[in-house]
């Protein structure tokens, strides 16, 4: 019985049944690349106004500065993104150990696990800004949205939070989080928007 239960209790990707690795749109060199991100850990951290110790705790526990404005701090394993007044999104590249991390954060902030609430993906490539411009009502120009910037907004009627990580060889890279329930609609828009530039799709 216990054995059977173990085999049943496997998590399912938010992109399962929605995104398949491959290529969409015109042929040729990909203008955009999308990589779905699975197994990430997310949590909202909220503190009372003026509460000081979350910053030091963040530094201590994951070695990152707590961003004061609409920015994200990133390491290779973790990140913390501003997500509203006194409100941050903590994340880990892997869920392993995340629950324990949240436990230790809970002394410093109200913690709500959101690991399963978001479908995440990375988009990059020389034409990536043109694709995002079909949905983003925020300015993605480097002078306005530099590396490390984040925004909460909507793309094509779907709420998103996204940020810009370090640039890659093909230009800017963005990580986008969408509500899990809307991953399908998000993808429908993204795929239609990216097709004219040729989009390569990788699954994490």
């Amino acid at each position, binding site marked *: 019985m216990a054995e059977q239960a173990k085999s049943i209790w496997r998590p399912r990707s938010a992109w399962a049944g929605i995104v398949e690795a491959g290529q969409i749109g015109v042929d040729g060199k990909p203008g955009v690349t999308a990589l779905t991100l699975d197994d990430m850990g997310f949590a909202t951290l909220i503190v009372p*106004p003026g509460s000081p110790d979350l910053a030091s705790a963040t530094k201590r526990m994951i070695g990152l500065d707590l961003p004061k404005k*609409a920015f994200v701090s990133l390491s290779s394993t973790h990140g913390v993104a501003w*997500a*509203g*007044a006194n*409100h941050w999104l903590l994340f880990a590249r892997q869920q392993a150990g995340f629950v324990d991390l949240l436990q230790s954060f809970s002394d410093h902030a109200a913690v709500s696990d959101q690991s399963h609430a978001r479908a995440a993906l990375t988009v990059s490539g020389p034409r990536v800004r043109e694709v995002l411009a079909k949905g983003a*009502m*925020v300015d993605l120009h480097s002078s306005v949205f530099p590396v490390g910037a984040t*925004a*909460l*907004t*909507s793309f094509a009627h779907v*709420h998103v939070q996204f940020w810009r990580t370090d640039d890659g060889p093909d230009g800017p890279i963005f990580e986008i989080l969408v509500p899990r329930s809307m991953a399908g609609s998000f993808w429908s828009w993204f795929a239609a928007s990216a097709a004219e530039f040729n989009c390569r799709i990788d699954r994490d």
Partner: protein
Amino acid sequence: MRIACPHCGLRDVQEFVYLGDAAPQRPDGLAATEAAMFEYVYLRDNPRGLLEELWYHGVGCRAWLVVRRDTLTHAIEYVGLAKSRKAGAAA
């Protein structure tokens, strides 16, 4: 229109939800009268010109904002956080 959210910067009005006049203050507590509550809930000055109003940045940071906007020209003079307004008033 665009509203300069103090947290998120200049954003399209499409990201916000409108509530209306920010002036009426809720008569809190058991001592409040029905008449005062009626005024709070129903009556509005509805000026043509400057109006302080409440907007919610629902698609962004989820802050409630106080926006001073001209209802004739739509020009926005000021945007602040609703939260600090009340805190400010108390201080």
